[in-house]
């Protein structure tokens, strides 16, 4: 009895994973196949990128400030407050910027995509697309995934910059460090990690490869749960919740493994 239940659950999980990866493969494959839904792509880039700007700015700014506050207390103990710029830049660019932007976008955009596609599913709009001879994955999923892949790194760059800027305010106000010294140490941190292809700082590679992956995770998870919605409006709510929970957990788990790989590849 217990074995049967376990067996059924395992089968369902494997089947869901298979469906997810088939969806991901098709969505990414359609990026290079005509027709290209350029208008949909720009609309999604606007919704995902421009629409998330406010929340990302706020998150980055206050995270940078609180990080500077907490670090200042610790650095004062060792008399190493001159290095606060390095600490803030390293933390924001490599870790906090991508992860926080990812979590914010998962909450705001992921839930929106799941709700939108879920509503389209329960009101038969997805079936309507099919009957009108349009592949719903190509029309709905590919533009969203591509838009997320493009916009997430851009949002992360903005998040990083605003966070480091927030840190500079605390460094000046709380520690009395001149802005020139703060920004000098920020650049030292960026340059100290070494370079890829002679010109691209490794910190940037690490900091921008993560949001690229997170963008894919958020959009694909949201589209998967949205398209799988069943059970009317209640199902839309369930899909939305599942999207935010699954995408957030995946971001944190994947971040750990990605960091391991990136540190191994780009260790200074």
């Amino acid at each position, binding site marked *: 009895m217990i074995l049967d239940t376990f067996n059924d659950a395992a089968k369902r999980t494997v089947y869901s994973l298979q469906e997810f990866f088939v969806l991901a493969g098709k969505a990414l494959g359609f990026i290079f196949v005509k027709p290209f839904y350029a208008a949909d792509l720009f609309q999604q880039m606007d919704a995902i990128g421009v629409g998330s700007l406010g929340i990302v700015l706020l998150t980055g700014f206050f995270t940078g400030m609180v990080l500077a506050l907490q670090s200042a207390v610790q650095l004062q103990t060792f008399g190493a407050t001159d290095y606060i710029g390095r600490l803030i830049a390293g933390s924001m660019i490599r870790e906090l910027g991508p992860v926080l932007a990812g979590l914010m976008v998962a909450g705001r955009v992921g839930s929106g995509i799941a709700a939108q596609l879920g509503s389209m599913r329960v*009101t*038969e*709009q997805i*079936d*309507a697309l*099919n*009957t*009108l*001879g349009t*592949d719903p994955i190509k029309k709905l999923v590919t533009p969203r995934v591509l838009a997320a892949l493009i916009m997430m790194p851009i949002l992360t760059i903005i998040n990083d910059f605003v966070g480091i800027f927030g840190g500079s305010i605390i460094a000046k106000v709380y520690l009395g460090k001149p802005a020139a010294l703060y920004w000098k140490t920020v650049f030292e941190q960026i340059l100290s990690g070494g370079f890829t292809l002679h010109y691209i700082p490794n910190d940037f590679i690490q900091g921008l490869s993560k949001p690229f992956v997170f963008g894919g995770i958020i959009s694909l998870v949201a589209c998967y749960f949205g398209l799988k919605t069943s059970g009317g409006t209640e199902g839309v709510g369930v899909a939305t919740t599942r999207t935010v929970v699954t995408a957030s957990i995946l971001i944190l788990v994947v971040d750990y493994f990605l960091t391991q790989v990136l540190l191994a590849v780009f260790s200074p």
Partner: protein
Amino acid sequence: MTDEEDRRRQQGERRHPSEKDETAMPRRVRDSGRVRAAIRTELEEVAEDTAERRPGPDEKLGPGPRQKVITLEHIYLAFEEPILENVTFHAREGDTVVVVGESGTGKSTILKLILRLLVPDQGKVTIDGDDITHLKFDDALKVRQKMGMVFQGAALFDSMTVYENVAYPLREHTTLDEDEIEARVREKLQFVDLDPDRVMEQMPAELSGGMKKRVGIARGLANNPEIMLYDEPTSGLDPLTTATITYLIIKLQRELGVTSIVVSHDIRSAFRMASKIALLANRRIGFFGTPEEMTGSDDPYLREFLGGF
């Protein structure tokens, strides 16, 4: 009336509800029987009346044998339990076949099979003589371009205006320029008795149920399909709007000679529009024939089914 009842009436006594009259039918059953008989008579009248007025497909298509456009042959389909068993029927060019049956009997599943959104476990579906059962997804998309579909809830894209909804299939599958698209959209909206200037820029959320259905029909017609499929086109509509939608389906058949499959539980509308009726009962086609043959049938289930309406 029994002596006992006569005596009670004279003495002003009333029968207690728990006392059963073994000799008479309960009143509710008697009334129900009368109502059913009346409705059945009405349906027979509708069948006879519309048989005279119903457009023979030959009106548009001319005399001579008409080809089978849609055929379902020995279809079996099961999910967790059997849905369809040995389902066989066809629609000839210009026919309107109405699939009727009780709720939850798999009527809409038949439309999904014709659209190749579902693949049967056994049997085959052919469109214009071509077996579509085992088509690849991309080829199935091409076959669907021959068909227009009207959904139960209209399924208009709620992020697009009425104009964009009707123009959608044209933008997807034709090379028409914007002027030609607008002309076609206006033509189709006028065909479904909507004023293009009034509705084109409206969002679906601003339309009534009947208007949504009509826009749905206009969108289905935009590509001039040879087949139209309707899923419960009159459900949830008031009698007047139901009559309007039924009239539109008849108009389509009469003026454009479109072959249609209509899934409905609205038997009165079915009798008005159908060339043939397919009754789905117990996962099988229990009857396939003209409305007149249906009302003339002595089959007990058929009589019960018609009486039920």
